[in-house]
């Protein structure tokens, strides 16, 4: 019997574009005895609607929270954006009576009411706070010794600090680093680790996010990391999917594989690269895979 049970909130981007993240996450969570219950119904978390109408975002998010409340389950997200929006809404509605009454007014029209009885957690928070290092360590069967990687945890699992509240330091986040170290891999420090990926504005401007990503990849290359590790579909797309385009735009060659943390952990648990869909990455982790298989 598994004690840890969550309602898994996949979001839109992961099922549409990143099966590699979903599949590897489901595999490693199962190994760690974490039970995932599927959402009974779904609508977009609301993240892309916040810029045009804050109340629309709050109501879309709150509807998902109500569904989780009905099941009496905490939400687990794999996406920093979904986490940020669902968590912010959960906090603001619980703490601000005026906002709660307004949004509950909307929700009553669809037969729902926000009560504030569940929590929202990102994968990283679940692994660090609920599963715990001991259990993860025990599940590592093939430590990734001699592998040197860097991490990009992304903004929304640590900022803004007033909403996130999971104890990680936004100026020097260590949760993901420590999770990486459990796999046996070395996690390297590099310059400007907490810098944003820039993906949220890519729909209106590519130049700025591309320059930001180029700089990030340069810093990662400077410490000779063999891969960059992410925990968010947006960050992942910025550095993996867009990497060839960034290389062309600046006439550079990076060739830095970008792995979902769950792929790295999966490898350390003994899953094969095929099972974890490593071949689906845009930047092929050929060297890394052959090093692991030696």
């Amino acid at each position, binding site marked *: 019997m598994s004690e840890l049970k969550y309602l898994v909130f*996949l979001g*839109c*981007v992961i*099922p*549409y574009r990143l*099966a590699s993240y*979903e*599949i590897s996450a*489901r595999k490693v969570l199962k190994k760690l005895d974490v039970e995932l219950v*599927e*959402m*009974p*119904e*779904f*609508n*977009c978390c609301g993240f*892309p*609607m*916040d*810029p*045009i*109408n*804050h*109340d*629309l975002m709050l*109501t*879309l998010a709150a*509807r998902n929270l109500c569904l989780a409340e009905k099941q009496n389950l905490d939400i687990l997200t794999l996406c920093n954006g979904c986490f940020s929006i669902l968590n912010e809404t959960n906090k*603001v509605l619980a703490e*601000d009576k005026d*906002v709660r009454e307004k949004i509950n007014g*909307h929700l009553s*029209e*669809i037969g729902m009411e926000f009560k504030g009885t569940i929590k929202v957690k990102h994968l990283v928070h679940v692994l660090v706070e609920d599963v715990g290092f001991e259990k993860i360590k025990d599940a590592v069967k093939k430590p990734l010794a001699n592998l040197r990687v860097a991490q990009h945890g992304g*903004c*929304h699992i640590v*900022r*803004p*600090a*007033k909403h996130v509240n999971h104890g990680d330091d*936004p*100026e020097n986040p260590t949760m993901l680093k420590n999770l990486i170290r459990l796999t046996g891999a070395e996690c390297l420090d590099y310059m400007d680790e*907490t*810098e*944003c990926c*820039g*993906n*949220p*504005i890519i*729909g*209106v*401007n590519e*130049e*700025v*996010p591309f*320059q*930001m990503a180029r700089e990030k990849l340069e810093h990662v290359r400077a410490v000779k990391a063999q891969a960059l590790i992410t925990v968010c579909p947006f960050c992942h797309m910025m550095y993996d999917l867009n990497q060839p385009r960034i290389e062309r735009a600046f006439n550079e060659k990076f060739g830095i594989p970008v792995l979902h943390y769950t792929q790295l952990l999966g490898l350390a648990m003994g899953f094969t690269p095929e099972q974890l869909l490593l071949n689906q990455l845009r930047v092929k982790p050929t060297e890394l895979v052959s090093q692991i298989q030696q």
Partner: protein
Amino acid sequence: MSETREYVPNVIKAEEMDPKFKYEISKLPGAEKLMLCFQCGTCTADCPISRFNDFYRPRKIARMVQLGLKDRLLSDDALWLCSTCFTCVDHCPQGVEIAGIVRVLRNLTVKERAVMPLVSKELASNILKAGYVYEFPESRLKRREMRGLPPLPKPNLEDVKKIFELTGSSEMLEKAKTFEKVKS
């Protein structure tokens, strides 16, 4: 980069300033601390977007709101460059939430000027049609099944449509003109 943008003269005329604007804005969630901004510049110094262009400046946005330069603010598409990284929110010594103020200004632009980025309009209409920001073609759902993944949760399109209506969003979407890109 900067040379592609038009030079906007900085001289502010008295009639451009709307003295009530700052009070209206600071009533809205996320912008409450606006008047506490003392122009230290920490937000601009730490903003990743500001590092890569010559015109997106969060400190300037805070001052412009305080001065009531509503027209200049709402007609400048630079507003749409904030990537909501929340660095400014965490670093401001006065607790001003610049990202919140920018969001309030964007919402106001949509509401009062009936204009939004094309991408926002597309995503909104997808959510209305599919509940997700994408419409999933059959082939993708099949592939999920083949990979042994559970079926995607179904959207409740009736509820989604109602939420758009209740929050005034359907009307906003209908009216809104769009722009495609923000030059940098």
